[in-house]
């Protein structure tokens, strides 16, 4: 049980660190966080395998409509800003045209089975890098175009991010189908002997070490580099930080990008043994990350890591000694109890909200 607690503790800290960063720096409860986890698993599977699953034709129409709508919106915005008359062939025109061209070629390749010049089978590491870049870009766009317009109204942020999460879920159902897709792993499944005669699944072991390394990297990034200190400064006082030369908008983008990549990596390394890529796997990580951040205090990195180990212990304790059907309830009860009894969290100061 200690083994399981440690592994799940590392997993939950990966999820919660990013969530705490956004919560602390931008004061935004990002309910889309779990979807980054799910997208990590899905995109990694998509980019690192030859296309074993066949995409249905419904997906073609949906993607086509979305692409065209995006391009039309972009052109209309450019026209409203009256830049089209002045710049004839410039960034404003070439970008949507380029996107349209590339997207159409990609759709043709995907759906009409034009023979590919190169076999679409990336190395696992290349697939990992491509999917993480995709998630990072997506998170920055979400921050800019979805969260920014409603940033001042926190309840609106909640509604819009949870609607977006369900939107993505249904979109993934349309593209990949309801059934689970096995996620490839970096290592073959075998039991690895540890000290004192205990053994451990190799997938879990690799997740454990990757998680520890990532936590250390984030810790160093936050405390030793300029941008990390900028994030902490904005978390303390946005106005004062911006007077000191820290750009809050850049910090928000950086925080959401970092948190999305952390969640995506957690998805890539956890999905092979926890649950395969399914369209519903975003909800549980979200609840867990949220409960941990609430328990650890808003925006407190050390508190989040400690709280994730505490909650992992309680969850596994409930599972092994009380009842496995009560496992999921631990986190929900923690959320409600902490919010009602001690809204500033275990390690947060009073008035930090």
């Amino acid at each position, binding site marked *: 049980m200690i083994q399981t607690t440690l592994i799940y503790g590392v997993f939950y800290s990966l999820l919660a660190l990013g969530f705490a960063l956004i919560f602390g720096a931008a004061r935004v409860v990002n309910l889309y966080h779990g979807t980054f986890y799910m997208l990590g698993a899905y995109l990694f599977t998509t980019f690192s395998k030859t296309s074993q699953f066949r995409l249905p034709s419904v997906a073609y129409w949906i993607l086509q409509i979305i692409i065209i709508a995006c391009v039309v919106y972009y052109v209309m915005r450019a026209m409203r800003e009256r830049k089209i008359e002045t710049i004839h062939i410039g960034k404003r025109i070439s970008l949507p045209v380029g996107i349209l061209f590339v997207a159409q070629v990609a759709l043709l390749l995907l759906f009409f089975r034009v023979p590919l010049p190169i076999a679409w089978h990336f190395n696992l590491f290349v697939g990992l890098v491509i999917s993480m870049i995709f998630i990072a870009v997506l998170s920055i766009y979400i921050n800019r175009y979805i969260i920014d317009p409603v940033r001042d109204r926190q309840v609106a942020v909640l509604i819009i991010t949870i*609607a977006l999460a*369900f939107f993505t879920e249904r979109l993934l159902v349309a593209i990949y189908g309801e059934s689970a897709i096995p996620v490839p792993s970096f290592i073959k499944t075998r039991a690895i002997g540890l000290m004192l005669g205990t053994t451990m699944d190799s997938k879990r072991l690799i997740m454990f070490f990757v998680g520890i390394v990532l936590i250390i990297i984030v810790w160093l990034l936050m405390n030793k580099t300029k941008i990390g200190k900028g994030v902490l400064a904005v978390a303390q006082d946005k106005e004062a930080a911006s007077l000191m030369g820290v750009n809050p908008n850049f910090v928000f983008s950086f925080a959401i990008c970092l948190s999305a990549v952390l969640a995506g990596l957690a998805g890539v390394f956890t999905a092979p043994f926890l649950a395969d890529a399914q369209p519903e796997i975003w909800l549980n990580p979200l609840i867990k990350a949220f409960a941990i951040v609430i328990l650890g205090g808003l925006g407190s990195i050390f508190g989040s890591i400690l709280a994730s180990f505490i909650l992992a212990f309680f969850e596994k304790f409930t599972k092994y000694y009380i009842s496995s059907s009560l496992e999921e309830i631990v986190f929900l009860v923690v959320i409600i109890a902490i919010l009602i009894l001690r809204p500033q969290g275990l390690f947060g100061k009073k008035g930090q909200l």
Partner: protein
Amino acid sequence: MGEFTKSVLPVYIVPGTRKLKPSKWFTALFILFLALVPIHYIITDSTWIVKLFISANIFAIFAMSWDLLSGYTGQENFGHHFFVGVGGYLVGLFAVALVSGATIKGVEMPALIGVKLPAIVIILGGGVVGAIFGLLIGILCLRLAGPYLALATLAMGFLFVEFTDRILPGLNPILETHATEGIYNIPHLTGGNITQLYYIVLGVLIVSLLFHYTITRSNYGLLLKAIREDETATKAVGINTTFYKVMIFTISAFFAGIGGTFLAYSVEAIAASYVDTHLLLKIISICIVGGMGTITGGFGGAYFLMFALLGMDEIARFLSDITDISGIREAYKVFEDIFYYAVIIIVMLFMPEGIITSIIKKSTVLYYKVKGPQNVQADKAET
């Protein structure tokens, strides 16, 4: 509205100076239209239009009660599906699961409760039990406001889904046979007569519309608005805001519970997947489309979205008829799920006041532009 806005904007755009409400004639005509809907069933003998209207009516009840608490009083409650689920599961338990026996491993087991309650008692009971839960949650969440209240109630909704999905079937072997993955075979409320069911739901809808409309347009409504705008100031005037917040929580939960019982009766089943977060998002999208903080918005938004979905269905059918592309109808089925979420995102980003409110507002502005400025002065003098 500060002094700045008042001095800059023309008089007819300042909110509050013109009352933007649909005319009474329009409302009366619409209710008459609703009363005539079962004619479609009598003529064509197909039930799906009437069923669609029944579900729209039930959603209008949910949306109005959510709007009373969240739009009008400003206590954003993301656990409304909890109250709906309480009502629905009460029907499931007292009409099927608790009152019917089961054969487990060849042994006949008697029902847990010997008496069958009449439907009216179950419906009122759904409202009362929902109200009790609303009272409890309202008292528990008194200290919370804004996003923290929203998240705490959202967590309670998840807790309810977990409870009905995992714990409830494990309580008793009879419940395990009847309540795993939902309770089905709920008896018809009116013996299969869909017209009668339609009129009952319409009656409940009109009663709750009148109730919500009266309470928000009275002095109490002003008080609730004051709580939404500035709770500290309202408290400082000497008003017991705690009492009103808890009271509105209870009333809202009462109507949600009653609507939940009708939801279970009209689809003849109740399951955790009917009352999960999807339901909450549907309710929210209805309110956002109609405009929050206007009870009529929840009423209008339900039909607006229903007609929009109906129109999209017709367009998809038309396109698939004329173009021979088989994917369109399938794509529409996927879109029906996505539609509500897309509506939420688009409306929140581009029309924060709601589609219907902004249409009314824009048409008011257009009306005065056509009419000319001297009449604006005359209208101002009238109001």
